[in-house]
């Protein structure tokens, strides 16, 4: 790598982010070990359920209708609350629910479901309808598969049952079950238009804050096309022909690895796991794509592009790296993002002194270990106080986490960056890294922290935690 931003003159040398044996492993030759998702522990403030996970995976299919079969809880509390952006259709934003009541629980809700499907098909004419089971419909034994099957025949559009009731487990498991539904009912059911150049499927990229658009722009400028978005800013149709892609990239989501694996064995599509957080990861991902496409010319284009982008980025980053160098961060986010964001932070000179491993798999933890030093604390389970403790003990300057922990950080007067689904800033790719650098600088520099940390003028007692 000629122009690595990591080997600039005045910067401290860093360990290579990726070790060699990992490189060879990531090309898709080795199947991941199936490992059950960890079970939540009673009495803790756990994360979302499988239903939530399944919905999150499929909701970014923007032109489809998403119907929740269950009482008001699951739909009423969740519709339209994720920042997955659409460049066009927005049917996916509608909160459709069968809103089962007590008599439906006793007599069954299948008739209601059937009629709901018919109504949606007639009024909204979507290309497909996804129907989600919930705890209640699974418990009362609704035969959703059958209802969906006959409905699909009747109305002439695919009606896809997503069997992922909340109680079967964690959000991660729900992501997987959604992947299963795609494999079973969607992928392989359509053919791309004749003149569409085939390329890469992006699996597990949800277009949070519009990141997909940055990624796509980057790929296109190297001449790589996206075949199917699974599922950020996707259209139903494009997923039906995902099996024609030449390469699968699993973007930062262990949960959909099974999907890639299955596509490899069914359709012979090679896959790799990659990320777009940080310059190194981005470069690596683009190169992998070109390599697996087996196109020399494309590889050369990618090399030129990544060299140029990295050079420019390292120029742009210079002032921020000066400010950020040596800053300490605690990162608490869902499983996979943990390791990829670490790479990005490292490139900015930010040291990760604590990292959440709550939802990480063994592989994730291994990758985290590859990227952090020995004095980084692993935070195995949730609970705001646990995270805060790490921030205090490790004298961290900033906390990087999701919305549910954000307000605790505020209470503790800790600078904070939202890295999860509610954020509005796109951090992927080279430009994204620059944005992340700016955001970190911003967040650390805001005058409010000084104000908050100094006692009222009449209150002489010093603040307990001097940062």
């Amino acid at each position, binding site marked *: 790598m000629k122009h690595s931003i990591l080997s600039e003159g005045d910067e401290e040398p860093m360990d290579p982010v990726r070790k060699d044996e990992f490189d060879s492993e990531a090309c898709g030759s080795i199947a991941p070990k199936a490992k059950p998702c960890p*079970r*939540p*522990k*009673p*009495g*803790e*403030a*756990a*994360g*979302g*359920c*499988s239903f*939530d996970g399944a919905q999150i995976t499929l909701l970014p299919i923007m032109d489809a209708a998403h119907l929740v079969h*269950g*009482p*008001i*809880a*699951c*739909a*009423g*509390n969740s519709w339209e*609350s994720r920042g997955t952006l659409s*460049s*066009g259709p927005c049917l996916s934003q*509608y*909160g*459709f*629910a*069968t*809103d089962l*009541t*007590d008599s*439906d629980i006793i007599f069954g809700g299948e*008739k209601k479901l059937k*009629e709901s499907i018919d*109504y949606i098909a007639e009024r909204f004419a979507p290309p497909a309808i996804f129907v989600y089971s919930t*705890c209640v419909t*699974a418990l*009362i034994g609704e035969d959703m598969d059958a209802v969906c099957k006959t409905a699909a025949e009747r109305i002439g559009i695919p009606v896809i049952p997503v069997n992922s009731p*909340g*109680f079967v487990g964690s959000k991660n498991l729900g992501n997987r079950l959604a992947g299963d539904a795609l494999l079973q009912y969607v992928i392989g059911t359509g053919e791309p238009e004749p003149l569409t150049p085939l390329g890469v499927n992006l699996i597990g990229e949800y277009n949070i*804050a*519009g990141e997909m*658009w940055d990624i796509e*722009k980057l790929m296109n400028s190297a001449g790589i096309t996206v075949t199917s978005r699974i599922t950020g800013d996707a259209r139903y149709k494009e997923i039906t022909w995902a099996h024609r892609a030449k390469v699968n990239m699993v973007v930062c989501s262990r949960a959909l690895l099974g999907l890639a694996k299955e596509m490899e064995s069914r359709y012979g599509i090679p896959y790799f796991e990659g990320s777009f957080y940080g310059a190194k990861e981005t470069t690596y991902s683009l190169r992998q794509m070109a390599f697996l496409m087996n196109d020399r010319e494309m590889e050369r284009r990618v090399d030129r592009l990544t060299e140029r982008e990295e050079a420019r980025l390292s120029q742009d980053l210079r*002032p*921020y790296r000066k400010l950020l160098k040596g800053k300490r961060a605690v990162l608490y986010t869902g499983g996979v993002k943990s390791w990829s964001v670490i790479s990005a932070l490292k490139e900015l000179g930010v040291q990760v002194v604590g990292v959440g491993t709550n939802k990480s798999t063994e592989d994730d933890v291994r990758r985290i270990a590859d990227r952090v030093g020995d004095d980084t604390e692993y935070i195995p389970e949730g*609970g*705001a*106080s646990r995270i805060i403790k790490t921030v205090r003990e490790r004298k961290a300057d900033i906390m990087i986490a999701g919305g*549910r922990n954000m*307000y605790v950080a505020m*209470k*503790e*007067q800790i600078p904070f960056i939202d890295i999860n689904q509610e954020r509005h*800033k796109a951090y992927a790719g080279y430009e994204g890294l620059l944005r992340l650098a*700016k*955001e970190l*600088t911003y967040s650390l520099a805001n005058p409010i922290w000084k104000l*908050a940390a100094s006692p009222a003028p009449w209150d002489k007692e010093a603040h307990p935690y001097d940062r």
Partner: protein
Amino acid sequence: MSKDELNIKDNTSLFKEERYVQQRENKKQFEAPCSEQETAEALAYSKSAEYMEKNFNRQNVVINPHKACQPLGSVMAALGFEKTLPFVHGSQGCNAYFRSHLSRHFKEPTPSVSTSMTEDAAVFGGMNNLIDGLENSVALYKPEMVAICTTCMAEVIGDDLNSFIGNARIKGVISEEYPVAYCNTPSFVGSHITGYDAMIKGILSYLYTRSGIESKPGSGADSGEKLNVLLGFEPYTGNFAELRKILAAFDTKYTILGDHSGNYDSPATGEYEYYYGGTKLEDVPQAANALGTLSLQKYTLKKTQEYISGTWNQQISALSTPLGIKGTDQLLEAISELTGLPVPASLTEERGRVVDALMDSHPYLHGKRVALVGDPDLLIGLIGFCLETGMEPVHIVCSNGDVDYNEVKFKDEAEALLATSPYGSEATVHVGKDLWHMRSLLLNDTVDLAIGSSHLKFAAKDADVPLIRVGFPIFDRHHMHRYPIIGYQGTLNLLSLIVNTILQQLDDNHSGFNFELVR
């Protein structure tokens, strides 16, 4: 570092750039969407009376619901008591939703745990989860009381909370004396307000019964000169403060039963605690001796009110959210009647000032057609406020409005209230309808203003009507809940919000010659 260098674009401005616009255009060609004409036709159809009729005939599917489920209300209720941990018995996802929902509204953390039931619990019952959960959560979060509610899953399999909690005591997971209140809150019945009510009643009756006290209302014993106050499912922390201010002006003693404002308005001291404020547990049984009870959400608090007037044998003044001048007048009269104290002069003076403000603004409000969405008690208050300012409520949608108080249905009361004024003559009240119905109403018969929660923003945008955010949830604006909307002061806040939105609209839509300095 200069501000310019730090200019980070968020998705609004970033993706407006030409290069992205082009990218999206390319995508459109590839996906062959409907033609502009087809889109226009579909839009026109959705505005037609024909479609509206179809939409209102829709029986089975709910589109964009304006309600949350019972346990969400229970979690909020539990947070109204000192050092109390909300504990949701069911599968884990619901609890995560409640926590983010409430946090997104209040911009504050929400401590609440779940028993995380899974498949084996579905088969064998959730007793082990409940017992383990109690043990873990008491050890981790050190609450002084645990308040358990159920989700639909626990209800469908028929878990018996009382005996499970008993078994937890027998097993020694919690001591005999450790307080654990509970209530049943299936999501397939009622809504967040029903669940709020169930938990408040659950906690009051539990703490009262175990104290062994016998109620002697107004007895003078301990807290006999006090007044009990219930605010209900209250999304405004500012309303608690306003009510305290009013009660302080009366110089009466009082106990607020269920005060979650502490948890949702705590200072940034540099140290987060799980619990802030809340009604003291020991005050609850004493509340049975109070002079009487003031309830500010009579439809929400139905069961609790029945319990207080029944078991505690207490006089109750049950109102709806006291909005507007008349609504606040009723509130002050009710306090005066329950306590025997006269309305203080300071409040009369405040009233005069707010009436003055309403007069100043009335030319801009008069005849404004308004659409309203919300919970029943809030809607009664809002209707009253609109009518006294000369605004005309036109469409009123209440997804969870099928409730009654003393056999008076919400819908009947709303209609009777509307009938008292010529400004209410055009209004229709839609109970059990959702925001997709509201969209039809807005497109078919347009209004000047929509008032409701953030969820209404999509329909309001389609109809190009400005939205005044009032109620729950408000996700996309900051600090609204910190300003009271009840009492005279709240009326003033609501008035400024509305009239200044209208004035802003005048400035935005000026036609060149009327961009005026003085309004």
